[in-house]
């Protein structure tokens, strides 16, 4: 049976061409297991796919995402590497040029910085520089974002920096359902995909159907319908957005929460439709504000929805400082519920 585009879960509202079906039985698994399933299923179907990274094999994954995969696929296809991001990223890119389909795990996207040259200069540009001769069907995945008192060098949100580069695609799943569907799409995509997970989300659970499904890139999801303000976000901050929406609803402010899901390509159309309905918009982006994903989306909304806005697009980011260690400082630093509520009130003249 070929892949079926499901769009299901209590609380999710299907839009953008997804057919909404009724679920008869719920199958609740963890986000990390959803990732595991996606990789394992793709590896079973296509022997060109392999997983490589630090501690992915014998350790069963630093965050247990690849648990059990060494046993099933063997050391040829689940490969432990030394701490050598630049080297093993470049090596995987070489393999991808040849036609294999590597999944490269960064223990944290913070560690991708030492591999910035291969992943940005080689992977993202190979097809173009070679005039269409050699592509790079590779997935780089790992934990992105702050929140666990990991301090500044281990708390990077790389989306804004990397999203600037043409030639790569980028996806950020929020729940287990999206994690599996988007990762499958990423593995099947012939282009380099940067897949940004979150350590804080790995243990969250959700319904993931047993049947085969994928989620196409460039398809945002309305996670909560509303009429007064559109909140646009990606990844873990959605958790804070949904909390904020609940709180604001008590004051009669109805928020529509849009999960962008992918950054390249960006489903600006769903976001625009929502803003045309609500006439107010807040973008919540966990990276720093200067030259960020948030500023890009705000700029696009301004230019497309100029006549539909009652106020300029407000933005919520992490504070423009290196990530602090102390818990109180870090919690204040994040794009938290309080900041989002303030932004929505300001955007809707309810301050």
């Amino acid at each position, binding site marked *: 049976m070929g892949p079926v585009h499901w769009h299901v879960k209590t609380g999710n509202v299907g839009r953008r061409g997804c057919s909404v079906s009724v679920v008869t039985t719920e199958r609740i698994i963890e986000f990390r297991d959803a990732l595991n399933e996606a990789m394992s299923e793709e590896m079973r179907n296509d022997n060109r796919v392999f997983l490589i990274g630090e501690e992915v094999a014998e350790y069963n994954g630093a965050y247990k995402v690849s648990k059990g995969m060494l046993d099933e696929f063997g050391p040829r296809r689940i490969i432990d590497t030394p701490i050598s991001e630049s080297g093993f990223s470049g090596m995987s890119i070489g393999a991808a040029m040849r036609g294999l389909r590597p999944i490269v795990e960064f223990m944290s996207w913070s560690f991708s910085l030492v591999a910035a040259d291969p992943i940005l200069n080689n992977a993202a540009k190979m097809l173009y520089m070679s005039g269409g001769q050699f592509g790079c069907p590779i997935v780089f995945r790992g934990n992105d974002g702050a929140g666990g008192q990991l301090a500044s060098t281990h708390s990077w949100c790389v989306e804004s920096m990397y999203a600037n580069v043409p030639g790569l695609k980028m996806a950020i799943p929020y729940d287990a359902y999206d994690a599996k569907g988007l990762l499958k799409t990423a593995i099947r995509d012939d282009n380099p995909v940067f897949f940004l997970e979150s350590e804080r989300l790995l243990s969250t659970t959700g319904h993931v159907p047993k049947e085969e499904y994928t989620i196409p890139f460039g398809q945002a999801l309305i996670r909560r319908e509303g009429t007064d303000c559109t909140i646009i976000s990606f990844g873990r901050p959605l958790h804070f957005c949904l909390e904020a929406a609940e709180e604001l609803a008590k004051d009669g402010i109805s928020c529509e929460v849009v999960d962008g899901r992918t950054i390249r390509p960006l489903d600006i159309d769903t976001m625009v439709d929502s803003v045309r309905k609500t006439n107010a918009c807040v973008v919540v982006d966990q990276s720093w504000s200067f030259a960020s994903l948030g500023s890009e989306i705000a700029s696009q909304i*301004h*230019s*497309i929805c100029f*006549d539909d*806005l*009652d*106020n300029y697009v407000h933005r919520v980011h992490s504070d423009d400082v290196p990530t602090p260690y102390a818990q109180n400082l870090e919690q204040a630093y994040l794009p938290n519920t309080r900041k989002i509520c303030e932004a929505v009130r300001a955007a809707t*003249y309810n301050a």
Partner: protein
Amino acid sequence: MPIEITMPRLSDTMEVGTILHWHVAVGDEVSSGDLLADIETDKATMELQSFDDGKVESLLINEGEAVDVGTIIATIASEDEEPTVDNIPSSSDIPVAKEAEAPAATVHTPSQKQSGGPRVSPVARRLAEEHGVDLASIQGSGPSGRIIKRDVLQQVATEATTSETTAAAETTKVPQPVAPAPIATTVVQPLVASSPWQQDRSVPLSNMRQIIAKRLVESKQTIPHYQVTMTFDMDPLMDMRKTLNVQLAATGIKLSVNDFIVRCCALSMATHPEFNASFGGDCIHYHGPVNVGIAIALPEERGGGLVVGSIKHADQKSLRTISQESQYLSKKARETGLSPEEMGDTTFTISNLGMFGVDNFTAIINPPNSAILAVGSAVEKPVVRNGELAVGHEMTATLSLDHRVIDGAMAALYLKALKELIENPASLLV
């Protein structure tokens, strides 16, 4: 053919080079790779080597001289046995690919233009325009007095209960101006209880009133108006109307006197085409369709004033159709407003103040019509029938006419034809 040596580009930013020293002289044999000269560039002193074998034929630039990159500085006669190596084509010979536009990345550009005046959010500005709300009448509740969406929506709600028309009326054909005789006694505002004014006040003109004002003046100033009045015996028509209405009772259709008049006027055009024409400067435009406009007064809640509904091809429509359309137009005009289609293309207009008890009045021509019929009420009065006094109903109607198109005799003949039809209503049935 000798090989031309040009001042080479020896660094990626070099524009000009100076020959510091020639290492060869005219007549010297050179091989590929031999040093020809030392050249000073913007960055460093570089060596110029020969790429070809041959004999130096000429040195065109002196030591110490600076020339642009690309200038010929020397020539070498080639020794190759085959025809000489052509010069490397210069950069100006690049063939251009077929013209193609640089693909534009999709960029949405905002279309709003800057304006002075109050600060307004973009959506508030758009909503104000859509609803015909004057921004100057709104106090903004946003920061720095910015007018925001809720301010406009509140104003729209307020205005819906006071005197303001919708923007739809602005973009359509001219609504029929009805100018009463100078003294206001002949015009009565129907239905609305007007409150006595205690003090002076100025009310800005609504869009509709602005347009009425403009068109009225234009009509009066450009069209040479004159009037012709006739009185009609209305008894036969009123009897027939009663009879027909009984028969039509089940259908819900109720014919009015005006419906008859519309039909009569329309049929009379057949023999009097000037009444269905317009003045065209150096010609007269005779219109094909007979589209009779009926003037509809709007209640104060709708802003007052009046609009003209158009009954198209009135000469081909039955009384009942005319009645239905007339009712529809009146109702719609009073409730939501007429569309441009419903108001446009009249060729003749009728204004009827009979229901208000007006005996007679004159109306102003609705351009580009050439005539308008002002109809008064059918009054019960002493009449002369067959040389004897009797009681009957008579109605007075006054034509206002454009003397450029219709002269007095034509007007009289038209009214005569009209009289024939109105006083012999049975002829409407055939």
